[in-house]
């Protein structure tokens, strides 16, 4: 493995992503929407293709050769993912996305442990996936959902956190990296404070695992969820990792095949973890694909991936900051943020911005980014978001800046 200080060879990386050769509306694709979903290297595509061409069978069931191979590949992927995010294999559950991971905790833990008067602490910058499941369970249990406010600097208000944490607080559900602002939240510190009042902590690491390589063990949280498709893997596979003893004490979320030890007509005993939480035939090829994605990221080194994103994001903040009438929503210091920049351009609606950019092959996200409470707090209906990953280049930032100039001329 190369030393961590050697920068990423972006040209070589880009060569691994077939989709980056595409042209869109006559122009080379400039893909600046990796926070919504990343593109996939051929190593991931090949692993999935190979799985279906050579090994496909249902897992944990058959004794035949293919069934054993499929089971081995599936469990091998679990091991890769577990090591990548600092969890034990036994406490690494495949879900279909982060939403399912949070719902799993909200229902399997929350529904059984929350009582009237208990408090679930979220933040104003949560994605709906780390908000709505808690609202649903709060409604069923009589617990309350409260939120840590966001400061004018787009950071979590940690003084307010201290005021909100108390003996009623049962769980703190916090994003490790905002998908709108890019803010990297001090989750380890939040976890220390939450644990001091006896609350559990769940980290939504949908952005933070792919872009910063955060881990369950180093963050010191109790639950951590992320999704494969934002981390070079396929759609359809997400991950919940947890402290093993917590998961061990939890009842199932979904019932069905695979999650049982023994079933009679009127009762069932549960399978061991993690399979207790994986009802039904899982997305095996997708898990295998995620395993290949983890291999790919680890071979490059997450520190180098992060360093590259810091470079590109810093350049984007500088260039975008020079545009008249462009307002950036997020921390100004690149060290405190992930590889994305949300902005508005005068009073031009983000949908119009994105539409004109698309005509030049530039893909950005426009909308509320599934974080409506945050946008309401920011006082905007929508923003445009450009997001970067290991294959993004400063040339692409230049293309974005040129595209925005065209947007202004078009609607001026």
């Amino acid at each position: 493995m190369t030393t961590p200080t050697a920068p990423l060879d972006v040209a070589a990386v880009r060569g691994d992503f077939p989709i980056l050769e595409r042209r869109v509306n006559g122009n080379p694709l400039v893909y600046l929407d990796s926070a919504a979903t990343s593109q996939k290297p051929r190593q991931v595509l090949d692993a999935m293709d190979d799985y279906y061409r050579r090994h496909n069978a249902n897992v944990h069931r058959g004794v035949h050769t293919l069934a054993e191979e499929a089971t081995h590949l599936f469990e091998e992927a679990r091991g890769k993912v577990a090591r990548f995010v600092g969890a034990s294999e036994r406490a690494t559950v495949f879900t279909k996305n982060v939403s399912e991971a949070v719902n799993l905790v909200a229902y399997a833990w929350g529904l059984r442990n929350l009582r009237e008067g208990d408090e679930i602490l979220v933040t104003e910058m949560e994605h709906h996936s780390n908000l709505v499941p808690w609202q649903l369970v709060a409604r069923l249990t009589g617990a309350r959902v409260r939120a840590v406010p966001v400061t004018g600097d787009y950071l979590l208000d940690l003084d307010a956190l201290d005021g909100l944490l108390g003996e009623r607080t049962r769980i703190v559900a916090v994003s490790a990296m905002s998908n709108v602002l890019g803010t990297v939240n001090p989750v380890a510190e939040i976890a220390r404070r939450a644990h001091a009042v006896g609350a559990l902590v769940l980290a939504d690491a949908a952005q933070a695992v792919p872009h910063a390589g955060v881990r369950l063990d180093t963050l010191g949280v109790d639950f951590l969820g992320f999704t494969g498709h934002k981390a070079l893997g396929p759609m359809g596979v997400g991950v919940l990792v947890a402290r093993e003893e917590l998961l061990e004490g939890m009842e199932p979320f979904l019932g069905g095949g695979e999650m049982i030890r023994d079933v009679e007509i009127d009762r069932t005993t549960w399978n061991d973890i993690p399979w207790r939480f994986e009802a039904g035939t899982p997305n095996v090829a997708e898990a295998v694909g995620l395993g290949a994605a983890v291999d790919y990221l680890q071979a490059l080194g997450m520190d180098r991936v992060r360093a590259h994103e810091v470079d590109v994001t810093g350049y984007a903040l500088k260039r975008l900051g020079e545009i008249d009438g462009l307002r950036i929503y997020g921390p100004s210091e690149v060290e405190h943020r992930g590889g994305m920049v949300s902005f508005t351009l005068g009073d031009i609606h983000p949908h119009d911005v994105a539409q004109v950019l698309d005509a030049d092959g530039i893909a950005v996200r426009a909308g509320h980014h599934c974080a409506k409470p945050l946008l309401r707090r920011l006082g905007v209906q929508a923003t445009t978001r450009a997001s970067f990953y290991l294959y993004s280049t400063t040339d692409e930032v230049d293309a974005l800046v040129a595209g925005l100039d065209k947007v202004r001329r078009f609607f001026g």
Partner: protein
Amino acid sequence: MGLDDLYQEIILDHYRRPRNPGRLENAQVEVRHYNPVCGDELVVGLRLDGDRVAAAAVDAKGCSISQAAASVMTEQVLGRPVGEALDQAEAFRRLMHGEGEPDEELLGDGIAFKGVARYPVRVKCALLGWMAFKDAATRAAGGQGGGATVYGEEQDETAVRAARGDTREGRT
């Protein structure tokens, strides 16, 4: 497919200078409609005189397509019998969904939005004003309205409260 096909000059003109903007004084019916995909929202105010549209206004927040389509809508329906205006709404809906040949006579300036049909995400933007008009006109023709009610708000406020829940209290 170029940008000029989507953003025809008529559309940009209505976007830059919306006709009949704002809340309608003495509205018989007001309705608020949303596009949850992009957060666009508008209030259509309507007053009928017999079976004719005597006044229409749109207070819109949103993208160029939704604002321009709503602006064109107000011009199209003013002075028309409600039944005919609803036919226009249907003609516009069919244009957006690519159903049959466009009825240019009914559509008027609405024909400028033909290119929008090729952008499925933007179709909802273009339809927002017309759907709100249809809602308002149906209510007005049915004798609803009067007072300070803005139809469509109550349900949303509940949803908004649920979505933000106790977050506001979190600041105390």
